[in-house]
């Protein structure tokens, strides 16, 4: 619990009452006290009986932030430093693209640089939402609003209620329960029913046409990579084996965990024609590893790859195989490691990859 809390409120030039488009180029300024929707937000906080005060309003022109974001963000952060906020509220921006962009860029930067919670609100199709989902910032929360400012009262009410929760240090639940816009951050929580029961509930809901929520939403791939060019001359190509199967040497020297690993390794197969059971085993905790432990070539097909190499079916096999995590990895880690492995393959002059995934 907190005795009192300092809130700084950020608005654009329009909601701060400074002006419209003709003022959209003004830089950041501070106004003491309450401006624009400020009094309503202050009142909403007071409904919770806590000593929460909006100590200042910072405003800035939409175009000023849009056209020189880095500079504008640095200036706003500098203004905020002296104000020592416990929470920064930005917007709501509703359907306004530039305002939404400003709230999100500022919210992301302020929360990171000042280690302060930031809270904003906007319409689902505001381009700021895309940034929000990209940043996946655990200290930045956004609430959904209407397209037009008619939803002001409700947005302020929701932000105030959630702001009190943030300031109190209460644990924050998933987006579906708390009401903020989700940004695909996965975290542990305690469920009342076990996984089998929840999946049956979900299946029944689906059969009956009732609403249900998936626990692992698959993201649509909005970052498609075009197919790499085919190998021109396979007889000279260097091919690497990469796997997510969890296959490691006996003793698991690098201590891969059963899931959620955040590093990759390569192990030498230079002198080997096959992976012998007992010498290699799988550390993967999310599938039945019985079969690959009995025959590791089911996961890392070294025996056949070596045969093909000796038969001249391709140039040569890379001296190491790569193990990359596949069990419940965080997407952000997976992308980073994918890029690291890709750079390493490139450096070794690898021409193609055979990638096995369990």
């Amino acid at each position, binding site marked *: 619990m907190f005795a009192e809390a300092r809130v700084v409120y950020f608005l654009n030039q329009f909601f701060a009452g400074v002006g419209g488009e003709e003022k959209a180029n003004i830089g950041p300024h501070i106004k003491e006290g309450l401006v624009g929707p400020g009094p309503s937000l202050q009142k909403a906080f007071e409904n919770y009986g806590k000593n929460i005060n909006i100590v200042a309003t910072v405003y800035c022109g939409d175009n000023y932030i849009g056209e020189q974001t880095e500079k504008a963000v640095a200036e706003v952060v500098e203004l905020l430093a002296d104000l020592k906020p416990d929470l920064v509220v930005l917007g709501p921006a509703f359907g306004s693209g530039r305002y939404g962009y400003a709230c999100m860029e500022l919210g992301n930067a302020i929360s990171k640089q000042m280690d302060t919670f930031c809270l904003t609100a906007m319409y689902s199709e505001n381009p700021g939402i895309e940034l929000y989902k990209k940043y996946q910032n655990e200290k930045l929360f956004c609430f959904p609003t209407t397209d037009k400012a008619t939803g002001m009262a409700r947005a302020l009410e929701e932000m105030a209620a959630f702001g009190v929760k943030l300031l109190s240090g209460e644990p924050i639940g998933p987006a579906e329960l708390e009401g903020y816009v989700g940004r695909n951050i996965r975290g542990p929580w305690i469920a009342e029913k076990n996984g089998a029961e929840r999946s049956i509930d979900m299946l029944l809901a689906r059969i009956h046409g009732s609403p249900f929520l998936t626990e692992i939403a*698959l993201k649509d*791939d909005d*970052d*498609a*990579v*075009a*197919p*790499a*060019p*085919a*190998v021109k001359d*396979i007889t000279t*190509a260097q*091919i690497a084996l*990469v796997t*997510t*199967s969890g296959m490691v040497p006996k003793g698991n020297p690098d201590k891969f965990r059963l899931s959620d690993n955040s590093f990759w390794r390569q192990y030498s197969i230079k002198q080997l024609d096959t992976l012998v059971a007992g010498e290699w085993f799988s550390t993967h905790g999310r*599938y*039945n*590893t*019985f*079969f*690959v432990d*009995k*025959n590791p*070539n*089911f*996961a890392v*097909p070294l*025996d*056949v*790859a070596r*045969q*093909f190499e000796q038969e001249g*079916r*391709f140039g040569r096999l890379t001296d190491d195989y790569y193990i*990359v995590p596949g069990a419940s990895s965080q997407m952000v880690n*997976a*992308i980073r*490691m*994918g*890029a690291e*492995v*890709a*750079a390493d*393959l*490139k450096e070794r002059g*690898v*021409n*193609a*990859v*055979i*990638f*096995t*995934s*369990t």
Partner: protein
Amino acid sequence: MAKEIERVGIPVALITALELLALHHGANRVVKGVAIPHPCGEPEASAEDDLKVRRTIIDLALEALQTEIVEPKVFARDFGVYTAKL
């Protein structure tokens, strides 16, 4: 992962039994494997037949790596008596 490797211009043949999931996650050259816990082999087969299955899969992977594609594609092949399990 496979996607990040293709991003730098290295073709990847991704062998998996979960071909639709692989496509969903942006893999381009997907080779249909035998089963989730043993993508490159058939534990119920004799050692000789299992080797044939694995050779078929790696052969298909090499074919995938040499095939110019403009959009994601699944490469699948008959594994003889074990095809029924696919």
